[in-house]
């Protein structure tokens, strides 16, 4: 029998990025908050310190900071006609585990979406007409606009201390920044990071072709910064160990560096680590959550009653938690009915390698996680799609984040996979290759979705989440078009060989592409096509709020976390200013 603990005001499921922000906002509002985290407690000192942190084998290859897939994983298939099988070794995307979540080992590329992304259906209808894409595409509006979220983007970016250069300050265009971005109310908290060599070559080439290059907004800081929580971050050293690593320098914004030290000191906050949440419990009406059940480190089942439940478990896990808790109707691709698990999408990435002569030293190891130069000329709806037959786009940039040799040892096509010829090609190419990144949007379709697997279970006996995903035709076209544009720039960078690899089917889980899994607990204004209302509140169980990239109705060209952070502050604001005054649905 489960041990029943005294009731708390709020229980947080997961203490990663979302959990840390909601914990802080709700304790500040005077509520008693319990944070339940499945992984370890861990801190910059001693857990992320060098030189031990700079171990490529341990962190990049063996994935020490990621979900322990001996206990839980996901099952995968490309189509409903196949049998899903467990991802036995996680490779394609890397959800984190432990205090701070994936935001400990993210890269820090920090991007705002466009208004056209938030109003994708209305915007496309207005500009291209209703019939532009086929009926299988289920993209839709978010129920919030860019203008709604701007103050919350601003708050989140000032929490992180993001380094960048504004290109649009309240409508005023500023050359050298992203002139194609939506208006921002003020400049970035800190100036851009230094520009590495390959990025500078990209900038010159892109300028020459008439594009608008600018420095990528980075949460690896260009100089020391003290945020509104009183936390001081340091200057990023370009160590080349960022994505998949914790930062020893206090230079990467993460829950550990920007907010946890304050939250953990708050008497209203209780952190419990090594607690695996099993489900949200509902009362007999099924319309009110009573708390959660979890298994603690000793294997004991514990019930934690709570008035308010915040789900912040990372996108895929949010979807699974709602399905396990029977909150909302599961999506059925055959009938098109149901909402939980509907509109799963991803990120359509590709690359172009530029091989230079041996006299050009690219020094790929002198890098930060989010340094580099990009163009937004082919992002979202910044370009005319009328004759292209697809929607969406990509940012293109030279944003290499490392030169760690197990992962990075490019060779020209035609090189044997091993032996002396391979070895010579590695030596010839290693320090003389630059990689362009094409980071593209992902549209939602009727066929791509998430549900519970009928066969495979986790270590606690619960069904795994089953992913059914293939790159939609729209995105394959988008990737071909944007990779071509990147190839034009690459050719102008002065290399001796340019090798593009546009994204092709099938989607495979064996190659890392990004941990930008989105959708499944979509927000919106129509409850027949969304799980959450525009305040990230469950339509069905109003004392449950769900926050994460699972709320995205489809994915935009940019990385998700700036928008996840903005949604966290947006939802926290709605809870504090509206919900607490009169607990109940915030939208009808």
């Amino acid at each position, binding site marked *: 029998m489960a041990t029943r603990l005294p009731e708390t005001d709020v229980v947080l499921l997961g203490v990663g990025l979302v959990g840390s922000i909601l914990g802080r906002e709700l304790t500040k509002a005077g509520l008693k908050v319990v944070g339940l985290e499945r992984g370890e407690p861990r801190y910059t000192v001693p857990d992320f310190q060098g030189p031990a942190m700079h171990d490529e084998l341990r962190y990049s290859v063996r994935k020490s900071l990621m979900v322990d897939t001996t206990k839980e994983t996901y099952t995968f298939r490309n189509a409903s006609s196949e049998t899903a099988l467990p991802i036995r070794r996680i490779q394609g995307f890397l959800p984190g585990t432990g205090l701070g979540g994936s935001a400990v080992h993210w890269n820090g590329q920090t991007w705002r979406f466009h208004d056209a992304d938030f109003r994708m259906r209305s915007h496309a209808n207005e500009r291209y007409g209703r019939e532009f894409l086929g009926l299988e595409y289920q993209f839709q509006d978010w129920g919030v606009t860019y203008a709604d979220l701007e103050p919350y983007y601003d708050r989140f970016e000032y929490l992180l201390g993001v380094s960048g250069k504004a290109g649009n300050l309240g409508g005023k265009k500023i050359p050298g920044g992203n002139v194609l971005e939506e208006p921002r109310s003020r400049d970035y908290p800190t100036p851009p990071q230094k520009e590495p060599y390959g990025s*500078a070559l990209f900038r010159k080439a892109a300028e020459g072709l008439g594009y608008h290059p600018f420095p990528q907004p980075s949460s690896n800081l260009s100089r020391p910064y003290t945020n509104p929580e009183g936390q001081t971050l340091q200057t990023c050293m370009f160590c080349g160990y960022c994505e998949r690593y914790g930062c020893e320098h206090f230079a990467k914004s993460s829950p550990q560096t920007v907010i946890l030290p304050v939250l953990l000191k708050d008497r209203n906050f209780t952190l419990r680590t090594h607690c695996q949440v099993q489900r949200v419990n509902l009362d007999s009406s099924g319309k009110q959550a009573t708390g959660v059940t979890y298994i603690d480190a000793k294997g004991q089942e514990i019930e934690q009653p709570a008035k308010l439940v915040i789900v912040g478990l990372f996108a895929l896990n949010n979807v699974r938690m709602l399905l396990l808790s029977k909150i909302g109707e599961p999506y059925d691709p055959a009938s098109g009915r149901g909402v939980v698990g509907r509109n799963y999408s991803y990120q359509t990435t590709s690359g172009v390698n530029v091989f230079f002569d041996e006299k050009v030293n690219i020094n790929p190891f002198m890098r930060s996680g989010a340094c580099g130069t990009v163009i937004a000329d082919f992002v979202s709806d910044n370009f005319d799609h009328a004759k292209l037959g697809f929607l969406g786009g990509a940012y293109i940039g030279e944003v290499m984040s490392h030169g760690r040799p197990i992962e990075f040892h490019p060779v020209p096509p035609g090189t044997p996979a091993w032996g002396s010829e391979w070895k010579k090609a590695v030596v010839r190419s290693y320090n003389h290759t630059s990689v362009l990144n094409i980071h593209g949007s992902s549209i939602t379709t009727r066929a791509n979705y998430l549900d519970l697997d009928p066969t495979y279970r986790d270590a606690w006996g619960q069904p795994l989440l089953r992913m059914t995903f293939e790159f939609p035709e729209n995105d394959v076209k988008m990737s071909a078009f944007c990779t071509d544009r990147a190839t034009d720039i690459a050719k102008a960078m002065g290399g001796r060989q340019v090798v593009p690899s546009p994204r092709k089917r099938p989607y495979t889980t064996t190659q890392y592409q990004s941990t930008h899994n989105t959708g499944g607990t979509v927000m919106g204004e129509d409850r027949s096509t969304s799980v959450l209302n525009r305040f990230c509140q469950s339509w069905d169980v109003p004392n449950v709020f769900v926050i994460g990239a699972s709320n995205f109705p489809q994915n935009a060209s940019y990385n998700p976390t700036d928008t996840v952070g903005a949604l966290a502050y947006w939802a926290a604001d709605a809870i504090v200013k509206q919900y607490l005054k009169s607990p109940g649905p915030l939208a009808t």
Partner: protein
Amino acid sequence: MNEPARPSRRRFFKAAGAAGVASAVPAAASAQQHAPAHAETYLFFNPAEAAFIEAAVARLIPKDETGPGAMEAGVPAYLDRQLAGAWGTGERLYRSGPWREGTPSQGYQLPFTPQELFRNAIRALNERHGDFVKLAPQEQDKFLDSLHSSKEDLGGVPASVFFESLLEATIEGFFSDPAHGGNRDMVAWKMIGFPGAYADFYELVDQHGLAYNSAPTSLAEDGRGRIHIHPVAHTGASSSAGGGRAPAKER
């Protein structure tokens, strides 16, 4: 599953010879050419397995005019430690059935841990192709090439899967920190110009095209209590050959 096959006594001695006692095998044995100065102490591999691994990695990443190969870099020791440890026994590997053959997009779906995979496959190879270690290098290359695309069942492991696993692990051992047993003396890093665990390029990142030629740093090496936190100038601090952090600017 297959009966575990024991190497015959004869094969055992031959293999042991190839692994270390160089004089016990004919001069043509290629493993001998790559044999380390003293025999490796293996925790996981038995002598027959060690002989196969040593011969194979010496061909996958050979010693040549670009520098030392996998054998000189200690890759067999790396593989041995990895297989003997957590990775070998299935660290972060989801191991519940049912087991089915998947599509390539679904990734690894065999029931074997790395220990089982390597052991089963090498046992079958040594049973059926035991002369591999004695072949001339070009013949060994041909055989490895054939494994790469072969569907042959090696104790339950498709030959191509074994080959891919071995190649991947060999590259890991070659390029990972020497603390893990391979990349001895950081030979692989020196060959490509990777600085290793070194952590601070703030002053250098905007010196575009710089020829960075300082010696790399290993996890094992940093006993100096160096903490790389503040962007203090390295330039001019030390320009002595080798260890200095003030690389010459080339262009």
